Every structure is written in C-alpha cells, then in structure tokens.
C-alpha cells in the first residue's frame, strides 16, 4: 500500500491539534474537572517507614469523626495479589501487590484509606488512625538487595503469571539471560576491549497533572470511573479481576490527560475510588498531591549497567556483553519488560557483531516503586552503550562518528536479537524495511559542524566547548500483543464519527488519527468527529505505551478508513445502479459516467428516506513487526573549567520515524523527549536519606528543565517510508528521550577529559573529575 507522500493533503501536512484551542481556553476536560461536585474525598495514610509490619491498626477514632464515610485497612479489602502495571494479559509483571497489605515496603506505601465529605475532614481522620509498626531492616542499596537477609516480599499469595525469573525469597522480581554466539570467545579474539560500568537514576515523570481518578454509580448501578490513565482497557480488566467483579460492571473513561510519559500506565487511586463508591454508593475522588506523585507513585528503574565491547583494530565491533542490575523498588511493575529493553532496543544498533550477550536481575528494594517511563530500558541502555562506544573509539583512535557509521544498523539488515527478545516474552524476527540511520548520522554531523569542531573548541582560558554524539533506536508497539481498533460511522451531512480506544495523553493521537481518516476519506480534519478511550463506547485498544499509538492505532484507523471508503463506494454504486468498480469518489461526490450523487445526499437518504440503514465500519490491527524509529543526536556544550558548570548550547537531532503524520506534533514528541532526556542527563537528581525518605519530593528539590536551561534545539527528520506503517509512519513517542545521557556524557568528556559514569552529570561531578585530572 505504498503511498506517494507528495500527494498527501492532510497527513504529513501541517495540522493544528484539534483540541489545543479548547484546552488553552480552559474547557473542563481533565479528570478532576469532571469529578462529581459532591464526591467523597479520599486520602491515603502513608507509611513513615521504609519497611515495616503493621502489628496493630486502630481506626475507631477516625471512623467516629463527623464527616468520615469510610475507613479501609488491609483487613477490609480483597486479599488478591495483582500487578498495578497496565499491561496486556497475562501480565509479564509479578503479582506482588495487594490493595492494602499488612506490610509496608517504602516510605509512602499505603497503610489505610479514608473517604470523607471533604479534604479537611479526610486529613483530620488520617491523624486519628493509630498504627503500631514493627520496623524491619530495609534494603536501601540495590547492589546489596540480592539474597539480602531482609526479604521484602516474604508474604504468601504472590506469583508470576508465566516464568519471568521471579524469586521473591532472594529479592528478585525478574531475571533474564540471553546469548547469541560465544561472547567470551569473541572478546578474547578482539584487539581492543573496553569494560565500563554506568549508573542511572530513578527519574520522576513530573507530569503537570497529578494522578487523579474519580468514581460514581450510573443509573444501572454500574461503576463508572474517570481516570487519568494511559491504559483504560487494561485498568478495567485488572480491576474486575482484583475486585471480583464482572468486566461488564465497570466502565473506564479517560478524559484529557495532563501528561503521562508512562507514569499513568499503572494504577494509582482507582482501586480506592472503586471501593469507596461501591461500599458507600456515593461518588468519590482521589487526587494525588505533588509530594505523593514524587514519593508514592513510580519512577524510572535505576540501573547499574556493565558494558564490555570487543573490537578489531580496523574498528569492527565483534562482541558486546551487557550485564544489568535494575532496582524495581518495593513492587515489580514492568520489572521484566523494562529490563529486557535494555538489551532488545539498544544492542541491535550494532548488528554486525559475532556475539552478543545480555542479562542480569531486577531486584526489590525499599524505595519508591519503579515502573514504566518513556523510553524505558532504552535510555538506561543507550547511556551505557553509547558512552562505551565513544570510549572504544578513543582507544581505537577513531572518530566515534566513523565507528558508528561502520558498525550500525542499515536498511534491509536485521539483528538476531529481534527474534530472541520481545517484551517479557520471545521476540519477532524482522528486517529493517526503513532505516535512514546513515543519513541521520551524516546530516546531524553537518548541522552541528562535527568535522570542524569535534572534539572541542577552546573559547577562553576557563571556557571550552565540547561536542558529543549518540545514536538510538526504539520500536513501534509490541508485535502480536498490542492491538488497536477503530470504528467509523457516517452521519447525515457527510461527517464521520470516529471512535478509537487509542489513548491521547497529550501526544496528540486524537489529532493524528483524525488526519489519517480524513486523508483516506478525502475530507478535512474538522469533518472527523473523534472520541477516544471509553471502555463502553469505543472499541478496544491496548493503550498509549511502547510507542504504539501512531503505528498500531494509526494502522487500525487507516484500515477502517479504507474499508469505509470501499463501503461507501459500494453503497453509492447500488444507489446509482452501477458497478462499484465504475464509481469514483472524491470525498464529496460519487461519480459514475454521467451519474452523480453527493455524500451529503447519500448520507441523508440512508437515515431518512431510502434504504434506511446506518453505515459503519470497525477494523482492528496488531503489529507483525515493530519497526524501529532511529535517531542520531549531537550536542554542543560549553563548560566552565573552574566550576564544572555547563550550558547546552545546541542539541541537534535527525530522526527517522517514517512519514511524519503530523510534522509539528512529531517535532513536539522529539523535542519534548529530548528535554526530558536532558533533565535526566543533567539536572534531575533523586536523593534519599539514610532511612529511605525521599528528599527530592517536590519541584524545589527535583529540578526539571525550564526555559532558562534550554537554549537551542535543532530537529530534523529523514525522508523515510515504512511500508508496514499507516501512510509510511513509524512511532516517535519515545525515541527522543533516549540519547541525551550518552550525548551529554560524551560531550562533557570531549570538553574536559572527565567521564561521568553516574547520572545526572552535575557540575559538581565534573569539577571533581577536573581536579583529579590535574593531580
């Protein structure tokens, strides 16, 4: 179905986001805007201890407080283990969480829940709950978690859904091993071996809308939940199983979401809203405070990654060994899948190796749980791999750009890793039908002035500019697992209702699905009335994760539009008394020889006058491959050699994401990802005290980039066409975040000679390194 991009009128053309204006004008459309006016307000009593057993809990005083409607402890809720991760079924994450439990496993873990007539009363009631804790020895260093004498999950009733290496008695949430060829043999043969270990931190999503959900019973006494979620259909399924309700009793609606980035691909307050409304019959709501978002939701998995790379003198990389240790915190959401991506979406970049090995463990600690976060696994792996490749290039005496050009993935090539590794399961073999990585590398080098400036340019005695680069890849959904679907219904007048399960969390999927449908049906975006993510009203979609929406849901929408077009032509042919193959449709008029009928007339006829019927179509799609988007990134940094402070003067990216369905939104995804990645690379530090209290639990302690830190982003796209994607598109939601840690690490090294192995790359670490070099 190759399409001539030049003929496209809507797709790949500048199109304003369809809801931008309404949101800027302040329409009430986010989850908490839609809570019932008289909702009971839910507050959670949270653990002050990193690890403790609840010896006794007395809620009688809280229950007596006027205005308190419900108090719940572990004694009052179903004792069913589940995973809060919003993933497909069976979940690849361990079922290691109870709604409430007699153990608390991190500072911030849930002890009890109060629902009251307002926030003041709910907060007052929390203070009246008396808890006696038996404080246990916490595990606060993930490098000592394995087989630690403190077992974080000693309880019965927790399980894995299929083998994921779950071994809770050893504090292991998941583990994984793979090898292609014989890495040790190939390393032994190599002329040069580099062996480097890197640490990355527990980045916080810091989406501006805090986690929010609310519930009410409808007139059929069904539970209706509004939730700021990325995965409404998974939420419905997991909630039904955990609460012992039929799926038919629950409706999840995702309104506008104020940023997700993976942080909303999991349960937050939904179970508590459901229980409160089911038990009291009253509407309820739970809105996280900012402190709860930082200290009681999820973070990126902190990791230690050891990379060993062997190469020949001519620069051929022949073996890569990647050993990882990942900290999933108190619970194992996404523990295996994040871990596997460290290998599966990173190591195939250098596909010409004779041997590659990946493995290690995901361990429990008494930290805030880790979960899904944009670019998960890939950003950690990319930092370690791409910094190590630069180190290798220096050892080989090569320009790292040339080393990458020589060894990296090209079009029509493959990697054995694709077939071996999927997300939690086996993978899918695939050939790179679209891979413009060589162009991206070349073009990015031109834009930054690499050949003239690398590795450094001296500005003054105290200032020097350094240049760094990295390459990256992602995927486009999970093959044979992620499914999206789309229904299109013709209205009188010729507009179309489009309903999709796809979850717009701000990335603009409603807009680009409308574009895809409009393009195929030769109409305009304002003629497409899109409604998404309501488990009652829209067809199924796995949700917004794994860079799947454009590719999976977009393909579903494209297929539905193609079918709708065929159907309309058939209907018009019948109406005109012609054969379908003789009917032409230009989006407005059906023409066959001398006969014509407009879509307008036809649509009115069907509903009011003749041959009365509703024209509608539903199509779905799942991937058979997961075509990776590729990127080359370069940065220019200016370092103050006396203080270690640095500015990122320019960050250049060239991206191959196939056709950009919406070029402006695609740029927004890339640049938004870059800035989040720069946050992780440079500013966002996570600090705990010795007792496991999170210190960086607000925006004064946790520093996300502001307008003053971002000076210049130069973002271009390669001309690329992915034959399996809608109008040639691949995904673009995550690729942007992957490169900054490695790029900045490499640029700082090139400026100063200091290699920072632990994120974030702070001025303090750089200065320390500069001082050591002087010694």
């Amino acid at each position, binding site marked *: 179905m190759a399409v001539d991009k030049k003929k496209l009128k809507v797709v790949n053309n*500048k199109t*304003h*986001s369809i*809801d*931008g*204006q309404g*949101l*800027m*004008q*302040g*329409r*009430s459309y*986010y989850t908490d*805007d839609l809570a019932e006016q008289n909702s009971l307000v839910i507050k959670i009593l949270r653990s002050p201890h990193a690890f403790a057993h609840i010896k006794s809990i007395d809620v009688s005083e809280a229950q007596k407080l006027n205005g308190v409607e419900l108090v719940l402890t572990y004694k009052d809720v179903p004792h069913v283990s589940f995973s809060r991760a919003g993933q497909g079924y069976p979940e690849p994450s361990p079922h290691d969480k109870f709604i409430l439990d007699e153990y608390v496993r991190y500072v911030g873990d849930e002890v009890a829940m109060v629902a009251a007539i307002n926030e003041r009363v709910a907060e007052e009631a929390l203070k009246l709950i008396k808890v006696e804790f038996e404080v246990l020895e916490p595990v606060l260093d993930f490098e000592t978690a394995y087989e630690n004498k403190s077992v974080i999950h000693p309880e019965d009733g927790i399980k894995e859904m299929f083998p994921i290496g779950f071994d809770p008695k050893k504090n292991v949430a998941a583990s994984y091993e793979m090898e292609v060829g014989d890495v040790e043999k190939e390393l032994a043969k190599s002329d040069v071996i580099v062996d480097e270990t890197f640490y990355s931190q527990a980045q916080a*999503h*810091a*989406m*501006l*809308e*805090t986690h929010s959900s609310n519930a009410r019973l409808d007139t059929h006494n069904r539970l209706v939940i509004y939730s700021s979620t990325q995965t409404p259909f998974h939420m419905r399924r997991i909630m039904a199983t955990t609460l012992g309700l039929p799926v038919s009793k629950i409706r999840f609606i995702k309104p*506008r*979401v*104020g*940023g*997700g*980035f993976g942080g909303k691909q999991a349960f937050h307050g939904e179970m508590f809203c459901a229980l409160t409304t089911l038990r009291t019959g009253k509407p309820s709501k739970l809105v996280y*405070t*900012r402190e709860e978002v930082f200290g009681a939701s999820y973070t990126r998995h902190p990791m230690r990654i050891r990379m060993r790379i062997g190469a020949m003198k001519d620069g051929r990389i022949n073996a890569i060994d990647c050993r990882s240790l990942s900290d999933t915190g108190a619970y194992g959401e996404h523990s295996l899948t994040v871990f596997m991506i460290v290998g599966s979406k990173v190591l195939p970049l250098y596909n010409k190796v004779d041997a590659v090995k990946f493995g290690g463990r995901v361990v429990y600690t008494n930290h805030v749980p880790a979960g899904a976060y944009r670019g998960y696994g890939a950003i950690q792996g990319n930092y370690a791999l791409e910094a190590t490749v630069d180190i290798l290039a220096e050892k080989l005496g090569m320009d790292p750009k040339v080393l990458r050009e020589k060894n990296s993935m090209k079009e029509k090539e493959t990697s054995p890793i694709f077939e071996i590794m999927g997300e939690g399961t086996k993978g899918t073999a695939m050939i790179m039908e679209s891979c413009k990585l060589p162009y991206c590398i070349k073009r990015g080098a031109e834009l930054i002035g690499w050949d003239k400036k690398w590795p450094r340019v001296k500005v003054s005695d105290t200032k020097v500019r350094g240049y760094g680069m990295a390459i990256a890849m992602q995927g486009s959904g999970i093959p044979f697992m992620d499914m999206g679907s789309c229904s299109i219904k013709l209205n009188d007048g010729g507009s179309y209702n489009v309903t999709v399960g796809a979850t717009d*969390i*701000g*990335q*603009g999927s409603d807009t680009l699905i409308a574009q895809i449908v409009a393009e195929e049906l030769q109409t305009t975006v304002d003629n497409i009335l899109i409604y998404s993510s309501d488990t009652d009203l829209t067809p199924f979609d796995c949700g917004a994760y794994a860079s799947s929406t454009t590719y999976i849901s977009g393909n579903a929408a494209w297929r539905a539009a193609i079918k709708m077009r065929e159907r309309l032509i058939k209907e018009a042919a019948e109406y005109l008394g012609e054969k379908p193959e003789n009917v032409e449709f230009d989006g407005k008029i059906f023409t066959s020889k001398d006969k014509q009928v407009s879509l307008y007339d036809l649509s009115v006829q069907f509903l009011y006058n003749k041959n009365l019927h509703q024209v509608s179509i539903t199509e779905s799609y799942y991937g058979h491959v997961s075509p990776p988007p590729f990127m080359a990134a370069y940065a220019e940094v200016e370092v103050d050699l006396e203080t270690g402070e640095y500015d990122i003067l320019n960050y250049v990216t060239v991206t191959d994401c196939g056709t950009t369905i*919406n*070029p*402006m*939104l*695609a*740029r*927004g995804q*890339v*640049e*938004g990802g*870059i*800035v*989040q990645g720069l946050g992780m690379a440079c500013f966002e530090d996570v600090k705990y005290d010795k007792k496991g209290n999170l210190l960086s639990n*607000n*925006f*004064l302690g946790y520093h*996300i*980039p*502001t*307008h*003053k830190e*971002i000076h*210049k*982003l130069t*973002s271009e796209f390669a001309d690329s066409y992915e034959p399996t994607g809608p109008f040639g598109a691949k995904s673009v939601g995550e690729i942007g975040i992957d490169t900054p840690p490695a790029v900045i690490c490499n640029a700082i090294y090139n400026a100063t000679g200091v290699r920072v192995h632990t994120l974030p790359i702070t001025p303090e670490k750089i200065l320390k390194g500069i001082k050591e070099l002087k010694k």
Partner: protein
Amino acid sequence: MLVTFYLNNTQVSYDVRPDEYLSQTLRSHGIKSVKVGCNESTCGSCTLLLDDKPVMSCSVLTASIEGKHVTTVEGIQEEAAKISYYFAEEGADQCGFCNTGYALVVYSLKRTIKNPTEEQIIDYIVGNLCRCSGLQSQLNAIKAYLKEE
C-alpha cells in the same frame, strides 16, 4: 468569611475559610480552568492575574483579595484563542495542562512590556513549568504572538 472581589469583571462574593487558597475557591465555584499542578507555588499551572499581574493562585489566600480583580482564562477567551493559534503553528501544545497558565502569563507580558527582549520573555515565563514540549516551540509561539499587532 465573606470575600467580595471581581472575577473577570463581575463582582462576586464567596463565603470562604480564612485559610482557603484562591485556586481552591475558584475550582470549587466551577472555574476549572485554574489547574493545580503542585499546590506549593513551584509549577505555575495555577497562574492567574490578580490586579492584572500574574500570580500563583495556589498561594494567594482568598481572604486577602477583597476588592481586587481576578482574571482567569475565561476572561480572555479571544486572546487565549489567538495564543493557541501560535502554539498550534509551532506544535507547542501537547497535554494542555499548563496552557491556561501560559495564556495568562503571555497575555500579561504583551500588555506589560512593549517589545520585550528574549531575556525578558524567558524571565516572564520561566515560572511556568511544562513537561511535554521542548520549551523552544513554546518560546517561538510566544514570540510570534507578541509580534502580532
């Protein structure tokens, strides 16, 4: 206690607690355009104009605004639409949660500083966090809006 002030030029009197904050008061009276992102004066999502100056409404006690003028995005609908046009042109809008705060800050900037320098623009908007965009597209959109006659 009863507090009387002007909400988008209409006089209103609300019965509030002495420790109630303006963001809370407005949201409880249906002004949901006021978004609370941190509730501790660090993110700027709840920004509105108090006597024409941008302030974080999560940190203004409602009791303190007796007689003052409050402008929310409901009071600048046309300008918000214009600003949104430039955001869309640059692909700067994503989740939208910070956008109402931005609209008010940018509207205020246009009326406060004639022909601001880039440094002045950044200084004016830096108190409004955005986690979605690359920030540069927003800045470009804002510059374009400020240039509009």
